[in-house]
């Protein structure tokens, strides 16, 4: 389990606010976890404990949900998240070459974060922008029709 990146009190306050605006039923759990991820970048142990207190759910239940979904994370991310679309339409039009170029340029395997904390490299299922494959999504910016030789210049745009 990852250590807590934020102070405990800070996390508790944030979780309190999120839960107050969302609700305390079981059906509110995933929306709460999504909001925590949006705010902290990941779901820390402190956050899980506080949600557990407020929703009266065992921490193991929360951890089980938090680790099931791809877009929820219990690990801190780097400054930029690179999502590589590994879906078939992108694969057919040269996605694999782009994937290798990305892996080589970043020196990361999918799921890893670089040691300087700049990049987190993950693969994703379809982003739904198949008309312009291969597609990579860096944070919220879409790069379409990517070729392997463009990869270094795309990465260079991010500080």
């Amino acid at each position, binding site marked *: 389990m990852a250590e807590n990146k934020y102070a405990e009190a800070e996390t508790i306050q944030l979780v309190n606010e999120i839960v107050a605006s969302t609700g305390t039923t*079981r059906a*509110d759990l995933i929306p709460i976890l999504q909001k925590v991820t949006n705010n902290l970048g990941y779901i820390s142990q402190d956050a899980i404990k506080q949600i557990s207190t407020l929703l009266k759910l065992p921490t193991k239940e929360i951890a089980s949900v938090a680790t*099931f*979904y791809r877009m929820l994370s219990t690990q801190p991310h780097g400054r930029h998240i690179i999502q590589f679309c590994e879906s078939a339409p992108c694969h057919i039009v040269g996605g694999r070459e782009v994937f290798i170029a990305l892996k080589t340029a970043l020196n990361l395997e999918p799921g890893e974060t670089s040691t300087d904390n700049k990049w987190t490299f993950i693969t994703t299922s379809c982003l739904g922008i198949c008309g312009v494959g291969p597609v990579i999504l860096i944070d919220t910016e879409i790069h379409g029709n990517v070729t392997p030789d463009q990869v270094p210049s795309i990465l260079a745009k991010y500080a």
Partner: protein
Amino acid sequence: MAFYRSTVLVSVDPVCVEKGAYELIDALNDELIKQGLIDEVRILETPRLGDPQKFGPDIIVYPEATHYTNLTYYEIPRLVEEHFIKGRILKQYAAKMQDAIDEELSAPKSKEIRIVLRNVGEIDPRNIEDYIANDGYQALGKVLTEMSPEDVIQEVLDAKLRGRGGAGFPTGLKWRFARQAAGDIKYIVCNADEGDPGAFMNRRVLEGDPHSVIEGMIIAAYAIGARQGYIYCRAEYPIAVSTMNLAMKQARSLGLLGKNILGTDFSFDLEMRMGAGAFVCGEETALMASIEGSRGEPRTRPPFPAQKGLWGKPTNINNVETYANVPQIILKGAEWYASMGTEKSKGTKTFALAGDVKNTGLIEVPFGITLREIIFDVGGGIKNDKKLKAVQTGGPMGGCIPEHMMDLPVDYETLGQVGSIMGSGGMIVMDEGTCMVDIARFFLEFIQEESCGKCVPCRVGTHRLLEVLEKICDGRGEDGDIEELQELCEQIRRNSLCGLGQGAPNPVVSTLEYFMDEYKAHIYEKRCPAKVCRSLIKYEIQDGPCTGCTVCARNCPVSAISGERKLTHVINQDICVKCGICYQVCQFDAINVI
């Protein structure tokens, strides 16, 4: 009514007004009076033309539809003189005609019929009035005032509408089951979690025509007797989520959602739920588990959601496209709808064309059209005029249909018979440069990753399938592998809990059936006929064409290429990772794949 030879539309949106739209109108009016043209030219105010931030104030002169921008009032006398007296366009201010570029949705081709996509790209999705002006919510009015819930169900049954999520279950029947189920509290769910890679038609409908889905859901709610509904949308589609949220708000403010809809005693409201990135949540029982706040794992059926769904209550789940069809069926009648399509598959289907086809993007075609018509007449043929090899339909659990079957009609039954599925509408066209073993491996990789792990046949079986396929692609295939694949496929298909596992073997089964020789070439000859599998190919630089330009050497990520400038370069096969970058960057076609 007075007759005018010209009409001038002046944009009076706030930005244009700030930039002097009204001064422009006054000046125009004065000048037309001065020139004695006021009875021939009419001035109308219009809410918005073009992009006021960039240009503005905008005016358009009809009937010739000349668009002027950046005009100021002191230019008006010249405009009137040139345009209305001399009949010449004042080029300096004429806006360039801009082609709207939409890579996903182009103008309908001759063989298309647009019902679900009819408003997409045509109306402003963020303005409910646009939808209402295009017959929006008329079907709802008709349903609430003229039809009983049973009438609605009968109409949908007569239209023979089938679930567009993939399985093709008759929608009317599903609604009847939910209506007949005991209980006061019932739910409606819209499955907007299309996860089929390459199928983005639902996203475009949600983004481009959100009210058609909302209207369809309200009608379904009336039919089954639900008061609460959920839209479960992929989190990968943030624009769809915000458009839907806005649409629901606007519908609520007009009394189309909420208490006493359109003044009747029928009440219904909707809530948006976002997914969190799990493919299996497209499966209805997994989706409901996710709405309830649990891990999105499927459960056994029966009981079906129509009996025991959300929180154990009767629930009707349909997909986006299914709901979007409903208002049109109610308005134009079941007979009209059933006049399109084949005997068992009625109406139209949207597809997301992708892969090696010239026109990728969304299309909507009547059932019964052939795959060849879709690829060549609608899709414009294969990119770079290569040869068509296969079409993959139905997402990762679909199958690959070979070229010689392209004249089959597209409907639920036919696709099933040839080993594929309709799915939600992904259609990936593959040319001769696609390795079918690699494609099978690729889909299995996806399925194996997305397997939720609850049942053993899917969790372990797909893992094992993938191992064998990886072995074959790696050049380590051996005698008996094909038999093992076949055996595994059969076991997984028969014993898995949900559609994901049951459909998982389809890519393998269909490629084994139609492309056995490729498997054999990989296993027995250690050769990849399509030159895709990296362990079985080699990049080599040819002596003649190589000019020694050093581009390949500079781009090689692992520095495997050496050679002096202006001399033939050499790839060191021990270092080469076969990424293919050199092959792409070489401008002299000097690199061969063998």
